[in-house]
């Protein structure tokens, strides 16, 4: 897998496939990027399980916070890592040592760990690094263009709408 350049097809297949996301490093601070992403993913219909030992037992945006990946109520389809690259390596080790393997491990913008990615892929897990699922969802749905951002996509098809104003989806997405 080339982790310097992902195809839109690859990213969309992941966003279509996953329903439950464990977000490691979710912040309760409402101006932190992880809070923005958590709120956005919830609005798009994903079930998000925040993981943050400092907030364990509390709620962020109405979602119960877990102390660690071992405490999750089930197997997450995707682990979204909002930690630095070194911590990401340890988190992947922990995931691979357990018996509840996700379909996807996603590392946020600026987070990369090549060895961890290779080990996860050897275990049959798809990996995305140095990307943000909010930005990717916004790109592929067209929403990000509302902020003047270059979505790098073209389409002559009808954009997918969700209920309410200014709310798009991904065509064929299971979370719709």
């Amino acid at each position, binding site marked *: 897998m080339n982790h310097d350049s992902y*195809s839109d097809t690859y990213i969309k297949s992941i966003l279509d496939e996953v329903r439950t996301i464990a977000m490691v490093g979710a912040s309760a601070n409402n101006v932190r990027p992880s*809070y923005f992403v958590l709120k956005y993913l919830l609005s798009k219909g994903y079930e998000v399980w925040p993981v943050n030992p400092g907030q364990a037992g509390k709620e962020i945006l109405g979602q119960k916070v877990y102390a660690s990946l071992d405490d999750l109520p089930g197997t997450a389809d995707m682990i979204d890592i909002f930690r630095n690259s070194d911590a990401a390596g340890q988190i992947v080790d922990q995931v691979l040592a357990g018996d509840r393997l996700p379909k996807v491990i996603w590392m946020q913008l600026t987070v990369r760990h090549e060895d961890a990615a290779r080990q996860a892929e050897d275990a049959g897990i798809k990996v995305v690094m140095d990307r943000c699922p909010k930005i990717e969802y916004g790109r592929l749905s067209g929403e990000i263009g*509302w902020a003047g*951002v*270059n979505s790098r996509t073209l389409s002559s*098809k009808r*954009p997918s709408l969700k209920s309410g*104003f200014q709310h798009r989806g991904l065509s064929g997405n299971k979370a719709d």
Partner: protein
Amino acid sequence: MSDKIPGFSTLAIHAGAAPDPSTGARTTPIYQTTSFVFDDVDHAASLFGLQAFGNIYTRITNPTTAVLEERVAALEGGTAALAAASGHSAQLLCFHTMMQPGDNIVAANKLYGGSINQLNHSFKNFGWNVKWADPEDISTFEAAIDDRTRAIFIESLANPGGIVVDIEAISAVAKARGIPLVVDNTMATPYLCRPIEHGADIVLHSLTKFMGGHGNSMGGIIVDGGSFDWSANGNYPMLSQPRPEYQGIVLHETFGNFAFAIACRVLGLRDLGPAISPFNSFMILTGIETLPLRMQRHSDNAKKVALHLSGHDKVKWVSYAALPEDKHHALQQKYMPKGAGAVFTFGVEGGYEAGVNLVSKVELFSHLANIGDTRSLIIHPASTTHRQLSDEQKTAAGAGPDVVRLSVGLEEVDDIIADLDQALSS
């Protein structure tokens, strides 16, 4: 579409513009509305807090204008863009995001005269200083930079002299000093030159000129190249520090490689207010769809006119980079090989009076102060735009008594040449 990157002409027509999902309208609708209804209080809170994508008020975002922004970002190879009411207001918003009182801009002294005025006078009222450098001597940029320099500002193809600037050489100076390079690409357009590919960090346009292309709508734009590290030091607090305007959000951390465009929007456009009209965005979008065709014809026509004038007995000299003997020809071949654009200057035999006579006698050319129209345009700077300067100042500004500037239009080139011939000989 597939994952293949579309070509320039495809982007010029399609980038940013899916069909309208409610009506099926294929052309981008003119969303001529001030405001947008919220789903509920939580949706409103998400929008005001920058947590959701979406529109609140046309002074900040508008769906028609957003298509224009994404279109130009795609054509320039940038990460994002912010449109404004004019090229001048785009410059204001760009530098407002970079500058604190006491900071300075190192700017090329070969710039559009309106930009020189903005930098020399209006910006100084904000405490933003300017230090001038010569784009034909790169060492003057290095020499002008000091520890309060926050931007380097050049034009890719300088107006009016037709000077092609060595973007890569100036970018190397900027990168070595950790300063963003801002390039005004109005005269070249991304069809002829894409400055981000040569190391520019930010690209600006007056959309009023060739991008809109029909002389009917004012507009400007800032394109974020996405490459500059705004958090490397404390020099760009609008991007790197918690912002009280948004409860302590750090824009660079939150918006990554398109943070500059977002900062210009949510800290600049929101509070300073020079929003473009959705109608103007629509007109300019329509113009951009034919940008590749128009710029090629502008350049081809201009080269034929320049070649004709360079052999004309009433013409002393012609300054146009596409002419093989021009001193900027090598740089033109490197940076804009498809053509040198529509605008050039030449000197008439007979000086000031001959210049006045020429602009009086033309019948197809329009005598006015603009460039980048479908129509051919002509101006004699010494008697109009530069009238208030002394003779020495006029000559230094490239507006000596014999100088005439053309913006060659899209008419039949034989008609354009015939009009100049009859006016020069009468």
